């Protein structure tokens, strides 16, 4: 649809081949193109601004290398900065010293929490753990059944003492699930919660109460990779509301560029731990910042070239 960033940058740099350094005008023109590319990839505006400012700083001093043309060189810098911002290397889950380890999931409606609960359960079970899934979304129609089906597929017990669909108290279910897990010798408890909006104060209070009832080792914020500019407002609301220890990006099997990854990372400062990449339980991976950076820039192929230079 649009020219690739590398095409646009090449246009800027046609005259530059022979010069030794990027001029301020080059840097400004470049920064404008990067800004556009990031906005088109759905990175949120304030995050784009901060990122571009840092980039300009770095590009000003840069020597033009022999091996790369200036466009490639800038892209390389952008890519490196993106990878650094997205979190360097992946982080692992934090486990409790005294089991059970408690993982609470939180996020907007439809972001992929319940599916992720099933995926985590399956993945952890395969590593020899004994997870317990907890149905603490008693609001969304048939969320409990959905989790039960997924638990069945993962071969993991689902703690669902309340029917849901508006019946039952999610905070009590969450609290009692820890006792249940101890009795059943489960070493990991995964708490699925209802979707909620950042501005829904009452629902955010409920999330806090669930959190306080289970004292989680991880609160994973699940966010849809297709989310646009709202990623900042929402991530701030969950950060300040319930608190976030890690992030999961979902629906990465789509073709959204996924700029939300950068926004969320910038806002929360917390690592993106997992990538959810499909509807099946096995469609799940640890998060790769380098792949995500290429995806946001929309230029995996160009980077391969750069790596080889």
């Amino acid at each position, binding site marked *: 649809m649009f020219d690739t960033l590398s095409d646009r940058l090449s246009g800027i740099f046609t005259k530059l081949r022979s010069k030794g350094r990027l001029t301020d005008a080059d840097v400004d023109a470049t920064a404008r193109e990067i800004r556009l590319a990031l906005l088109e990839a759905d990175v949120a505006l304030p995050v784009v601004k901060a990122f571009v400012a840092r980039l300009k700083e770095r590009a000003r001093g840069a020597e033009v290398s022999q091996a790369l043309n200036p466009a490639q060189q800038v892209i390389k810098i952008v890519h490196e900065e993106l990878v650094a911002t997205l979190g360097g290397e992946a982080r692992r889950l934090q486990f409790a010293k005294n089991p059970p380890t408690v993982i609470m999931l939180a996020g907007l*409606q439809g972001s992929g929490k319940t599916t992720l609960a099933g995926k985590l359960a399956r993945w952890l079970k395969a590593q020899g753990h004994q997870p317990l899934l907890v149905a603490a979304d008693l609001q969304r129609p048939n969320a409990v059944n959905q989790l*039960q089906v997924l638990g069945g597929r993962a071969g993991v017990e689902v703690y669902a003492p309340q029917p849901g669909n508006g019946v039952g108290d999610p905070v009590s279910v969450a609290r009692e699930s820890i006792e249940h897990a101890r009795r059943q010798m489960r070493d990991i408890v995964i708490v699925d919660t209802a979707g909620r909006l950042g*501005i829904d104060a009452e629902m955010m209070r409920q999330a806090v109460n669930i959190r306080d009832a289970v004292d989680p080792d991880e609160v994973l914020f699940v966010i*849809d990779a297709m989310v646009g*500019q*709202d990623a900042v407002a*929402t991530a701030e609301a969950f950060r300040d509301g319930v608190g976030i220890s890690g992030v999961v990006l979902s629906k990465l099997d789509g*073709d959204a*560029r996924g700029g939300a990854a950068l926004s969320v990372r910038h806002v929360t400062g917390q690592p993106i731990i997992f990538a959810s990449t499909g509807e099946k339980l096995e469609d799940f991976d640890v998060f790769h910042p380098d792949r995500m950076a290429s995806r946001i820039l929309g230029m995996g192929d160009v980077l391969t070239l750069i790596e080889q230079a």
Partner: protein
Amino acid sequence: SRSQNVFGKGLLALLSRDKLDDDTWDEVEETLIGADVGVAATTDIVGKLRERARIHGTATATELRAMLADELVAALDPQMDRTLAARPQDGRPAVLLVVGVNGAGKTTTCGKIARVLVADGHTVVLGAADTFRAAAAEQLATWAGRVGAEVVRGPEGADPASVAFDAVKRGIDAGVDTVLIDTAGRLQNKVGLMDELGKVKRVVEKHGPVDETLLILDATTGQNGLEQARVFTEVVDVTGVVLTKLDGTAKGGIVIAVQRKLGIPVKLVGLGEGPDDLAPFDARQFVDALVGADA
């Protein structure tokens, strides 16, 4: 640029109108981009606005906002027909197909539309053609019970096209007014799943034309929303958009690009998880919310 600051804005204002307005123009642009209107549509709309501002002579920031709102409403073409083709014709139920990516709000919207129709005295069949997602049919059945509609479902893993076919058949046989078909969420880049959706529509059309194909778009969606609309329209000829989750902080500006590029109007908006949280789309209201927050 540093030297300009020495003179201060007051002097610059006298020297150059263009310079005076730069911050304001930036702000206008950022309002739109921050609402997911997208760079291309924003550039275009701001370009038109600049032209108008030039013709009108100077404009204050407040006047500019009002002009911007007009420009956005114009981009949304308020003349467009946004009524829902949900009433029976020639004794045959209206058939509505509800499509979209995963988790956008399809099943909920089916429930809400049924609620409005039932409250209007119509009879409704809900077809559970999402035979894939865990407990999807149960979720639709819960909605059916809630709003007083009948649900037609098949066994888990059944062919979605045949469930959809059966639902319409049931609607015709029972003489109901409207059949709403809920489909499984699918990302538009999944060719196999999009083919499956095409088949659902073709099979349903053995009973006669589908009256309305609604694409459910989540208001939090960024630029990918345009691609969603493009591909879904290619496959099942979308006739209207329902913009869900507008009760959150997201502005849903991508629908402006969707309407400009593809001519598909937003017909309804989702404003919550309850049965009554559905409203007709009102371009003026939508635009006011979009530009209003930081005015």
